[in-house]
């Protein structure tokens, strides 16, 4: 499972622009008020 996820992430990162990387990191830094706003619910 982890190996497959890593290959997916490798593919995703290779296509991201520096701006997209910063946006994605900023999204993870937000503190959700409810579980439904947790970061993984909006995984790109």
């Amino acid at each position, binding site marked *: 499972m982890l190996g497959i996820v890593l290959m997916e992430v490798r593919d995703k990162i290779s296509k991201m622009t520096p701006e997209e990387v910063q946006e994605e990191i900023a999204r*993870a830094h937000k503190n959700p008020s409810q579980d439904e706003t947790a970061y993984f*619910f909006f995984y790109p």
Partner: protein
Amino acid sequence: MKDTINFYRQTNAYGEFSNFYYAPIVIDGLEWPTTEHYFQAQKFAHLPDSEYVEMIRVTPQPGSAAKMGRNRSWPLRPDWEEIKDDVMRACVLQKFLQHPKMADVLLGTGDRYLNGKCMGLIEFRWNVMLMSRKTCPLSSDPPLLISIMLSRTYLQ
């Protein structure tokens, strides 16, 4: 056939690919010591009292976080089976985005197949027997029953 990269121990080559590798990440405004900590804690994020989530987050060892994640004294979130893959994807993505040097290592693997190896059953039972001999030096036989029970638990 593509080359395969096997990884398991944090101290070996590509050990940073392990979920037990210490690479603090911020997700949902909180810092998590490893992706294992985040993954395990999300099993209980539905509970109104987040005390257990916080206990997992601050436990020092990723192995402890994994063990706490298997504790069913607290109810597993009902949709865990549906969301767990996305939880894993999200925290692994953030690990590599927030640690650019590790992202370079990942990208450096090109299109090679990545395989996270688990400790084999034989290796695991051998370790258990060695530990048992160490703790029970007067015993002539390794406590096989303990070994089998632990192996069974490990495989679940």
